[in-house]
């Protein structure tokens, strides 16, 4: 709700300031490097090597998805002046990695990255062309859907498999890069590239950053299954996890949001002209 109120306030203020409101919709691709997941995938492949037909890829493949943003900009009409654009919106990215076993079943991990983004661009340009450098702040809400797929295609999130679950993690991320836009009058095609990094808390020591499944499904499931305790945190090193689950958690053998890489976006920007 806070986000919606902020967006409405932002747009209302822009109208009052006589700035040019713009909206953009586009495609984003993020060839991410996620060290925690890479450790998990590689150790999982090694631990179950004798039963795996097609192992996990070494890291998550590129995430891709859609972005929709709105904001306001200040520029001149002659393509030669100061260009300033600040936008806010969402970026919804998806990627998956799956290991197939010799018995026809598989372990599937699907990563959803829902980002609330605020971008600021500074450069030169106007209605037909602009080039700018930009900074971005992303409030990231990630979820990993970790499931076991049986021979008949049934996808299980149930407690009968220890790793099954929906693991969430949040983090504030930052980025910097550049953008270039071409267009006619009120519509521009914008290509953007931003390098994503972790601006604060580089060691990921806060539990908000860890992929956890604390929604209450797991604790109850353990009581019902009466077997091993289902994990509430995604492990990084699977060997260590299998050897001793409790020690694995207490030794911080956990995955947290620490991905990095370049994020590329191609979007259509619609500019609403100034009030006369």
């Amino acid at each position: 709700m806070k986000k919606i109120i902020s967006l409405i306030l932002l747009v209302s203020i822009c109208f009052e300031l006589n700035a040019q409101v713009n909206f953009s919709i586009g495609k984003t691709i993020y060839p991410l490097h996620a060290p925690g997941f890479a450790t998990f995938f590689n150790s999982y492949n090694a631990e179950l090597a004798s039963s795996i037909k097609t192992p996990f890829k070494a890291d998550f493949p590129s995430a891709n998805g859609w972005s929709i943003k709105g904001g306001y900009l200040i520029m001149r009409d002659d393509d030669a002046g100061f260009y300033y654009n600040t936008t806010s919106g969402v970026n919804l990215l998806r990627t998956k990695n799956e290991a197939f076993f010799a018995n026809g079943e598989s372990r599937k991990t699907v990563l959803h990255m829902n980002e609330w983004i605020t971008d600021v661009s500074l450069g030169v340009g106007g209605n037909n062309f602009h080039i700018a450098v930009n900074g971005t702040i992303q409030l990231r809400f990630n979820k990993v859907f970790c499931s076991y797929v049986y021979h008949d295609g049934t996808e299980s999130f149930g407690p009968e498999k220890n790793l099954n679950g929906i693991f969430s993690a949040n983090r504030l991320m930052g980025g910097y890069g550049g953008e270039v836009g071409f267009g006619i009058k009120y519509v521009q095609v914008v290509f953007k590239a931003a390098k994503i990094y972790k601006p604060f808390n580089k060691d990921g020591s806060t539990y908000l950053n860890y992929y956890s499944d604390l929604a209450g499904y797991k604790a109850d499931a353990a009581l019902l299954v009466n077997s091993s305790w289902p994990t509430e945190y995604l492990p990084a090193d699977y060997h260590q996890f299998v050897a001793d689950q409790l020690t694995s958690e207490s030794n911080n053998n956990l995955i947290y949001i620490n991905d990095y890489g370049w994020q590329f976006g191609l979007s259509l920007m619609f500019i609403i002209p100034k009030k006369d």
Partner: protein
Amino acid sequence: MKNIFNCLLFLSCAVIIMSCEKEDRHAKKLYRHEGRWTIDYASIQLFDSTGVIMSDSILPSVGELVMFQSGSLNALYGYRQAVFLFTDTAGTHAFPFEYVFDGKRITIKYCDAPFEIDGTYSSAIDKVNEQQWEIYGTNGNTSAISSMTSKFILHLKRSKN
């Protein structure tokens, strides 16, 4: 121009709303329209080691689930209140329980009905008027790779009042 602006603003808001509070949105599917769901059928399937169905027992309607919006004692974890209206030859009996649903899983607990429905289910069908929840058994084998030996299915349809 103002209409276009309003339209785009509405679209942005819709996307923002869709991108958050998903658990509430999924739970809402269960409790809205009076939250009454008829258990269309319950089924237990048993599989052999090659994945072939050995037996498939189907039990026709055993009653109704009434899902409420109000939180239970475990509301901190998203649990809500519900009632299982269990029907047998002696009539219909009400058994309260708690549930939590995130679109992929549903956990039901504290239900004392003679027909056992407690457990953490995976959601196989998640539609406005139809739900299918399943529990998979591996004969106690909790290793990373182990085939399914049983499947318990609850198939629900929204009650027509």
